[in-house]
């Protein structure tokens, strides 16, 4: 549909290519595991978790839509076993989703200790970063990081750009120069999904703006917007409604050039990946027919 005049960076995450001009590489889909209330006793249900990862892998092979696993770590006492779980069950790179700065710091130290910094996409580097965390990042930089463009003070597209670029009015320095200074190699930009009524559409508008401004792989996790939509509370027990809406909202950023999607609960891989194969196939045909783009070999455009 579109092409950017700004050069677009592509990263090779152990065989998974993310970034570049729209349509060229399939969209990287990231499914989340160990989120709140997924399992009654997560530590005791690791086999179930491993099976879900296996299912996502199988769907990736079938659809040519690449995927990664995003593992939630809420508390310090979960770090060791969840990282062990990831290393045992995942080949290559995985994403660690850590809402709290103190937990992120401990994770970095642990990864350094066991030599696993190269395996990790750090999710996320955001406005809540502390001085101590920045120092730890410089000492122990992970291979990659999600830079989150959330700006509560100015949540239009420009505000989201500001947080990444120079920190706007809230930070002394932007997340991008901070991550570069720390030595993070793979810089993935997240336009920051916000609820309806909180400029939700700016998460979409920011996709082409980020790609034009920074030339880096850009994505988002709009399933969060769906899940905060209050009227759906009455359908709380009807998972199919959420899963369908979660999958369909992911089509929109990809149409505007997004390179990766955090699609939410990994259980939704069965809908999310085939859905994305359909969208990517369409995007690839458009890029090839109209812009003469050379579509990558591993792509539903060629395999499906």
């Amino acid at each position, binding site marked *: *549909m*579109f*092409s*950017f*005049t*700004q050069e677009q960076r592509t990263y090779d995450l152990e065989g998974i290519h993310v970034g570049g001009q729209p349509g060229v590489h399939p969209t990287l889909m990231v499914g989340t595991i160990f989120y*709140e209330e997924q399992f009654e006793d997560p530590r005791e249900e690791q086999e179930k978790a491993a099976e879900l990862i296996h299912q996502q892998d199988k769907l990736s092979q079938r659809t040519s839509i690449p995927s990664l696993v995003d593992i939630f770590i*809420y*508390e310090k006492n979960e770090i060791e076993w969840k990282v062990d779980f990831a290393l045992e069950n995942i080949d290559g790179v995985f994403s660690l989703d850590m*809402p*709290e*700065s*103190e937990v992120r710091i401990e994770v970095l130290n642990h990864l350094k200790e066991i030599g696993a910094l190269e395996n990790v996409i750090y999710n996320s580097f*955001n*406005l*809540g970063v502390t001085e101590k965390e920045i120092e730890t990042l410089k000492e122990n930089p992970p291979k990659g990081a999600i830079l989150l463009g*959330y700006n*509560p*003070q*100015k*949540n*239009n*597209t*420009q*505000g989201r*750009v500001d947080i990444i670029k120079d920190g706007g*009015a*809230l930070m002394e320095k932007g997340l991008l120069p901070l991550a570069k200074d720390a030595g993070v190699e793979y810089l993935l930009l997240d336009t920051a999904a916000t*609820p309806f*009524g*909180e400029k939700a559409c700016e998460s979409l*508008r920011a996709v*082409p*703006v980020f*790609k*034009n*401004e920074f030339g880096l792989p850009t994505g988002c996790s709009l399933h969060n917007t769906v899940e905060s939509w*209050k009227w759906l*509370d009455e359908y709380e027990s009807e998972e199919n409604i959420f899963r369908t809406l979660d999958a369909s909202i992911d089509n929109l950023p990809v149409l505007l*050039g997004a390179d990766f999607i955090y699609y939410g609960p990994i259980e939704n891989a069965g809908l999310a990946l085939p859905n994305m194969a359909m969208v990517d196939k369409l995007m690839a045909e458009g890029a090839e027919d*109209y*812009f003469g783009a050379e579509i990558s070999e591993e792509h539903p455009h060629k395999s499906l």
Partner: protein
Amino acid sequence: MSELYPWPGNYETGNPESPVAVITLSDDFDFEGDKVAIWGPMKTENLGIEKVVANVLSNPNIRFVIVCGEEIRGHRSGQTVMALIENGLEENGRIKGSEGAVPYIENISLEAVERFREQVEVIDLLGETSKEKIEKAVERCIDKDPGSFGEPYTALKIETREETVLETDFALHSSLKISPWGKISSMEEK
């Protein structure tokens, strides 16, 4: 007359004369209609707290905010709302002493936040899930009700809306232009 509880959210309402609001965090409790003015969960340490501040301010009879239920992991919204009442805001809108992920108040004025801090006393029952214990705390608050804080305060949402331009030569965003051939580039590029 000003509107009671003007900010939409996930809450239930009871007796507007009651001096008690209850934040149930990740839990769902129900309360007898005549004991509690407003109650409900609160997920986020930024937008969620702003809704609580605005709605509590609309009812000056509310003088106590009970924070109970299981904490929201990662967000630490319960600890954060207590830190707000205890410490207030830093210059850039960050809630002083919060352990939450992104604890910023940006859509509501400093005046509103300060009035909220003056109007209510926080009752720390963080982690408490026994409804019986929470109801006892509600009773204690009712017993020591200091009376109305005065006139209702309407907290307006600070809007940062960009000016809408209907007749323009840009698409998508003012920093971008899309050529007739579908190429996206910066507005200043030739």
